[in-house]
């Protein structure tokens, strides 16, 4: 059952003499929700870029969905979905156009796109908004839509970079329901967040400090280990000593 879809071994990225990500070693299993936490500048973004096949590591090994991060980046990209708070959807396209576009670039057939966009719009309750521009949607809806678009091509892994920043508490929870649904269907979810209560929703979390993973376990075990009541406290204990800036 425990099949690793993300497997890294001493994955390192250097920029000159600056080590952005230092010997990252972790395994993420199929259907797992993995929280990737760290202070600003800890090296999360760099690590995530390597895992997505956007950046070639300086040293170390990693396979993503069974593909090598050095040689098979194109295959990796076909098997992952990506969503970030900063870029998610085209604001000047309609909901439907966005779905079609992203379905298209992942090589879905017209039939599939039509079928999936109908299903998706019904699932999100966006029937009335399907032909409206994305720019007019409330932020929470945009984020839900862009997550659904990121998993439209049924990737093995979906990477979420601070997906819920600035979203209201109710929508934030609805968003996490989408994540649970996806995980139940076997999609592996790799997520970063600044909301520590969301760390609790993850099966396991890692906390990065100054380019290194300082802790990796279930939220429950981490709290026990650090003798803390909440993940917030665990995080604070670990990241307080962080030395470096972005």
């Amino acid at each position, binding site marked *: 059952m425990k099949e690793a879809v993300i497997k890294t071994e001493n994955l390192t990225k250097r920029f000159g003499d600056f080590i952005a990500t230092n010997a990252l070693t972790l395994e993420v299993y199929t259907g797992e929700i993995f929280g990737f936490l*760290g*202070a*600003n*500048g*800890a090296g999360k973004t760099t690590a995530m870029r390597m895992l997505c096949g956007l950046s070639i590591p300086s040293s170390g090994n990693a396979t993503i969905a069974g593909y090598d991060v050095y040689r098979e980046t194109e295959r990796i990209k076909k098997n992952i979905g990506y969503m970030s708070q900063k870029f998610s959807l085209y604001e000047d396209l309609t909901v439907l156009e966005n779905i079609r576009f992203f379905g298209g670039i992942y090589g879905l057939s017209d039939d599939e796109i039509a079928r999936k966009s109908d299903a998706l719009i019904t699932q999100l309750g966006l029937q009335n908004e399907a032909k409206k521009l994305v720019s007019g949607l*409330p*932020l*929470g809806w945009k984020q839900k839509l862009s997550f659904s678009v990121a998993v439209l091509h049924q990737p093995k892994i979906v990477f979420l970079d*601070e997906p819920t*920043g*600035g*979203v*209201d*508490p*109710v*929508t934030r*929870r609805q968003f*996490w329901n989408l994540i*649970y649904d996806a995980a*139940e269907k076997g999609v592996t979810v790799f997520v970063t967040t*600044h*909301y*520590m*209560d969301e760390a*609790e*929703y993850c099966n396991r979390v890692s906390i990065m400090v100054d380019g290194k993973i300082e802790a990796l376990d279930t*939220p*429950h075990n981490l709290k026990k280990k650090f003798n803390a009541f*909440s*993940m*917030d406290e665990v*995080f*604070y204990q670990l*990241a*307080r000593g*962080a030395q*470096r*800036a*972005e």
Partner: protein
Amino acid sequence: MLQYYMNTTEPMSTRITPPAIVADNLTKVYGAEKTTAVNAVSFMVERGELFGLIGPDGAGKTSIFRMLTTLLLPDGGNALVDGHDIVKDYQQIRHTVGYMPGKFSLYPDLTIAENLNFFATVFNTTIEENYHLIKDIYVQLERFKDRRAGKLSGGMKQKLALCCALIHKPTVLFLDEPTTGVDPVSRKEFWEMLKRLKEQNITILVSTPYMDEATLCDRIALMQQGSILAIDTPDAIIKSYPDILYAIRAEKMPALLKVLGTSNTVATSYAFGEYAHATFKEHIHQEQDIVSMLQYAGMDNIEVKRIQPTIEDCFIKLLHA
């Protein structure tokens, strides 16, 4: 003139100085579609108070900030900052307030020292003159003072921006989402800085989408879609929570949430960190009743406890109301 002003406990005549901020039915409408970003918002901030506007993106926080800092004209209502009218006396306001906009708003190609020096000069002052105000914060930056602002971490950028907003000793400080996108450690540090500033008797209006930061304010306004849902001290808002709230945990959390979501005895339920928070339709429920109900539904390792709601619980409650 302003109704809200008159309703305060103190009679106007005994006031020596006007309140720091008085907003009266402040309204902002955008675009051809007439989207109401701020809908008749009224509140008052006393001198020396740390007042928080708490709400998600799209609640209208930034529009309120921009109206109060004279960057936008209101489409309805009015407001006084430091006793000055935000429309007519905009120039006086610009002399006295400090403002830190939401997005990074320094010159990335200038160094820390150059940025600070520039903003000091723009505000007709020097770094030396008000150094005492920023000293606590600036000492943390000083060793990087020749580094360009664009090369700083999120937390450090935030600190520098705060220094720049403080350098002219403003009477009212406007901080629009200073901690958005900042990691929890830097956020904590930032709020500690605000607490120290409050001791210097600077009025602070701050906005944030993080509900857990609400308790760090003296008073807060919970906002959603341009309207204020509640306005009071964090304690009073928590006390006014009408229901009994339970935190529940079980072996399999997703299954637990499903059970709670479908049970007809449950009024509301949602995930909250490692627990699920729930309220029940009749108050007859004791912890033991809830445990039995969940055991019956096949849950294991059940933990149920009555808890005091957080601001986030209150916010969720207000959204459903």
